[in-house]
Structure formats: structure tokens, C-alpha cells
């Protein structure tokens, strides 16, 4: 498998993530889309690491995973408490922080 085809896959996954984030209202889906984008970038990291034959890209991928895990912890906690308060998991319902 060449680096090029891995990058194409990564780009497709990222685009799917973006589209999911922009088009879906459900907060859980939005979260999944973000995870998809993060993993698309992880794929790009490891693809380049494989091409160059060093570990830096793989290390970057680990960092991304750690950050993503932390983000999920915080994010899910917010989603749960919002759901409890408003009986809804729609991101459009949480729009009070505005001008």
C-alpha cells in the first residue's frame, strides 16, 4: 500500500467527519464526526511515519489519541448534563452563548 492511497483514505475519512459535523444535529453524532476527523489525521501521521521510517509521526498519533480521549471525557460529561437539563441532545438547542 503506498503513502498516496493512505492519504487519500485519510482525506476521505476527514471529509466524512467534516460533513457529519456540519450536517448532523445530534451531539453524539457530532462527537463521532470529530473522532473521525482526529483519526483521519492519525492515519496521515502514521502513513508519513511509515514512509520516512521513523517514530515521530507515530508519537504524534499517540498524543492525538490522548487528547481525543480527554476530550471525549469532558465532552460526554457536558452532553449528559445538557441532556439532563434540556431533555435534548441537539447541538442547535444549546445556542444561548451568543451576542
Amino acid at each position: 500500500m503506498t503513502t498516496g492511497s493512505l492519504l487519500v483514505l485519510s482525506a476521505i475519512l476527514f471529509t466524512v467527519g467534516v460533513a457529519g459535523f456540519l450536517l448532523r444535529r445530534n451531539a453524539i453524532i457530532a462527537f463521532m464526526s470529530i473522532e473521525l476527523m482526529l483519526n483521519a489525521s492519525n492515519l496521515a501521521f502514521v502513513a508519513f511515519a511509515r514512509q520516512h521510517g521513523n517514530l515521530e509521526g507515530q508519537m504524534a498519533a499517540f498524543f492525538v489519541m490522548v487528547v481525543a480521549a480527554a476530550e471525549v471525557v469532558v465532552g460526554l460529561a457536558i452532553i449528559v448534563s445538557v441532556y439532563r437539563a434540556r431533555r435534548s441532545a441537539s447541538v442547535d438547542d444549546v445556542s444561548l452563548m451568543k451576542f
Partner: protein
Amino acid sequence: METTAAVGLFSLAPLMIGIPLATAFLLLLLGRVSDAWGHWLATLAPIVSFTIGLLLFLQMLGEPRAVEVKVYEWLATGSWSVDIGLLIDQLSILFVLLITGVGSLIHIYSIGYMAHDERRRRFFAYLNLFIAAMLTLVLANNYLVLFIGWEGVGLASFLLISFWAHKDSAAAAGNKAFIVNRVGDLGLASAMFTMFALIGSVNFADVNAAAPQMGGWATLIGFLLLLAACGKSAQVPLQSWLLDAMEGPTPVSALIHAATMVTAGVYLVIRSNAIYAQSPEATMAVAVIGTITLLAGAWIGSSKDDIKKVLAGSTMSQIGYMMLAAGLGPIGAAFAIFHLITHGFFKANMFLGAGSVMHGMNDDVNMRHFGALAGPMRITFLTFAMGYLAIIGFPFTAGFYSKDHIIEAAFHQNTVLGVLALIGAGITGFYMTRLMMMTFAGRKRWQPGVHPHESPLVMTIPLIILAVLSLVAGLFMNGWIQEWLAVPTGHEVHNTGLLHITPIGWLTMAVVAVGVAIGWYMFKDDIAETEPQTRNVFALVGRNDLYGDAFNEHAIIRPTKGLAAGLAWFDRTTLDGIPEGAAVVAGGLGNYLRKGQNGYSRSYGLILVAGVILLAAVVALGQLG
């Protein structure tokens, strides 16, 4: 002028200023604690100053000289240095005696006059402040220290004119005096700037020495000093404040606005005689201003019913005589000082007499409500009459010698000025006779409830002393003063014998006699209790102070207000417009942009993506290019 350093008694000179100044601050700072005894302390202060002045005078009498007392170096910047220094010479010591002598008498008088005023202590503190400032003015050895005194007397004058500030008219009069005087101060300040620029010093000695090399600058400085003198001495065109200044308590009118402060302009002109000697134009201007004012003052004095305003008009007029004399060159300078001192006596006398009349008439000043006061107020009447004789120039009284010399000198110099001064003397006879007739003679026109009574001794004794001085001062000073002032005024002595009356002297007496006769004839009969309606242009113009206020209103105040309104408009629209416009633009932009903060996270995401795509496009285009 040869000056010597201060030794012995002369080193006490700063105390003359220091004692009244310290008393003034003490009384103001102690407050009510000193209410009970403050006026006694304040009366003592000018008496002590007078004693020191008298000792110095006696010492100088034996050995005439000018002494400079350096107190300390005040400013030293670059090549300029200004000392706080005092100059005690023949001219300044006469002023010291006049200020502290008449000042002491007026302090004593005020003890009685202000007895029922609850702010008496404050009044005396201000009086002492005035004495200190006036002494600074006349004792200074340079223009800058003189300026301190000049401003100090302005401040004291303001505080005392508006002493009864609960009356709107008194508060306004104080403001008016202060503001009009600022115009004069501008002249003095500009004159000092010019001196600094030209010779780098404002010491009288340096300026006098440098005057012959000044050329045209002497004319400029001369005119600027004349402006200053006009402001302080209420000369036309800055005369309008003096009549309103009569709102102050009467002792203030006597001390400040008749005997001493208003003569500061004359002092300034004579002190600067070296400059005027270089500039015939400026000297002529002084004489012309003096002549105009002596006629204007006499005119106003002839048409007022308010006794204090008549005396104020007369003060303007007499100071006009002094200015005229000062503008006649060295020959007139000694006469100007002579008249200044005799005027100090008889005008203080008459003002205090007017205060005594008001005291007995429940503070009424309208002469149409007086009449027949010679009986109930015998001492006031007799002392006032002596002042009257002195001011009209009755033979052998003080005014006879001092004023006739001025008229005579004016004739020598310029016939027109002489004739006008002569007419002024006639009008003086008229309006003073009018005042005497309306106040002391004729029918009782007292208002209901008014019971005229003589004032207490503490008020009448100063009157008696001043009345005696009004009569005899001329006899004593006539021959002597020219010789005494020969050095500071720089002129040779003329023979003016006591009984030596020239044709002009006879003529003056005749003109005054005519004025007195007209005054007597017109006011010997009944006088209406209200001001009669009149179409007489002279009377109308005089009653309105020659339209001085109207002129100021139209020529100065309105244009200034217009300019101020224009500048305010410019400031509001143009200057404020720049920052305000910028604020509006920034605010509007912010208002527009904040619409993006709509709270929808997906919309933020879209903007983020769009931004990334834009950046990527830029980078890609950059790669291609």
C-alpha cells in the same frame, strides 16, 4: 541712582511687609478663636509698619539715599536672575508712610464701622493682606516683585469688594474688578517679557540704565505699562470697574479704591520715568489718558445720586490729574506724587465721612434721602467740609497746592491739556458743592425710621486726623516734596512758594469759584426725593457711567462670547467628531460582526472550515505562483 546696602534700621524693612502678612494669615488660620481680639491685632500690624517706616523716613531725612535690601535670590535660570529685593528710596518711603499711615487710621475706623458684622475678623485679615501686598508693590526693587504686590492688591481688592458676597451685586462687582484688572496685568506682564528679552533683567536700576539704548522698544514698553496703569488706576478705557467697586464696605472704598491701590498705576508710571523719558509718544499718551479720565470722572461725579459713586467718580478724576502730571515728564512727576499724597488724605477723609453718614442713615447711600445732616452729624460735617475745601483747591489747603501745580505744569507743556485740566477743576468745584448741598444742607429728606446720629469716637478720630492733614499737608509739603523727589524723578526744582500765585493760579481759583457758585445755585433749593426724569443728554450719559458698561458689553463681551460659542461649536463638531466618528465606525463594525456569534456550534464549524479552505487556497495559489 546710587544705592547702598542695607545696614542698621534698613534691615528691618522686610518686617514692614512681613508683619501685616503674618497677621493676615494668623487671623485666617486661627478662625473663630481670634474673633474676640483679631481686629485689635490687625490694627496693630499697620501701626507697627508705620512706625518702622517713620523711623526709616527720619533717618533718610537726615541723609537722603536709596537703599536696596536683598531678601533672597528668587529665580536663577541661565543668565537671568531675579532677587526678592526691596528698594527704599525717597519715592517708596513716601508711599510706605501714606499706605501704613492712612491704612492705620482706616483700620481704627473699621473697628467701629464693622462692629456689628459677624465676619469682622475676616475683614481685618483681608485689610492686612492688602497692606502687605501694597507695601510689596511699592517697596519692590524690580518689576517682578512689584507684580507680586500688584496681583496681591488685586486679590485683596477682589476679596474686599465682594466681602458681602451674599449680595449678587457685590459678588458681580468683585468679579468685574478682578477681570478688568486682568487686562491691565496683561500689559504689565508683556512689558516684563519685553524687558527680559531686551536686557535680561527687570530690576529698576538695570532698566533705568538700559533705557537710553532701547530706542523704539521704549515706546512699546511705555504703552504696555500705561495699559497696566489704566487697569489698576481705573483710567479710561478700563475705568468701568471702579464705580461698581463701591459695593464693598466703605472703609475698603476709602483705603483701596481711593487712597492707595488705585494710585498704583501712577506709581508705576513714575517709577518707570526713565522709559517714558525715551518716548515722547508714550508720555503724551499718558497725559492724554489722564486728561480724558479727569473729565470723564468729573462728568460721572456730577450726575450720580449715590454718595459713594460721586466720590468714586471724583477719585477717577483726581487720579486723572495725577496721570496727566505723570505724563508731563519729569516736571510733573513730583507734582503727581504730591497730589497723590494729598488726595490720599482728603479722599480717605471724605470716604470715611461718607461711611459715617451711611452709618447714621441705616446704610442708605442715596443723597436724595439725606439733607440737613450738618446738625446731627457735626464732626462728620466739619471734617467732610475740610476734605471738600481741599479737593476743590480752596487757597492754602492741600489740594490748592497740589492741583494748581499740575494745571500750571499742563499749561506750560500744552495749552489744550491745560485748558481741559482747568475745566476739570471747575467741574470738581461743581460736583463737590452738589454733594455737600445735597448731604449736609437743605431740607430733611430722611426716610421714615431713620434717625441720624453721630458716629462713635473710634470712627470720628480718624476723620479728624485726616481732616487736619487735608488742610495742612499742602503747606508742609509744597516746597519740600520737589527737592525730596528730585533724585527718583530726575528733574530740577522749580520755585513754588506758598504765597506765590501765578496768573494761572488766579484763573484756576476763578474757574473753581464759578463751579462752586453754579453748584450752590442749582442745589440750594428743594431737591426731589427721586431722581427726576430728564432729557438732558449730559445727565443721561453721566448716569449711565458714560456708557462704559454698554461699550464693554458690545465691543468686548459679546464678540468674545461669540468667538467662544464658535470655538465651542468647532470643538463639538470637528474636534470631537474625529474620535467620535472613529468610535461610531468601530462600534458599527463590531455590531455587524457580532452577528456571527450566533451560538450555533455548527455555524462556527462552517466558518472554521471556510477559513481553512481559504488559507489552503492561498497557500496553493502561492505554490503555483
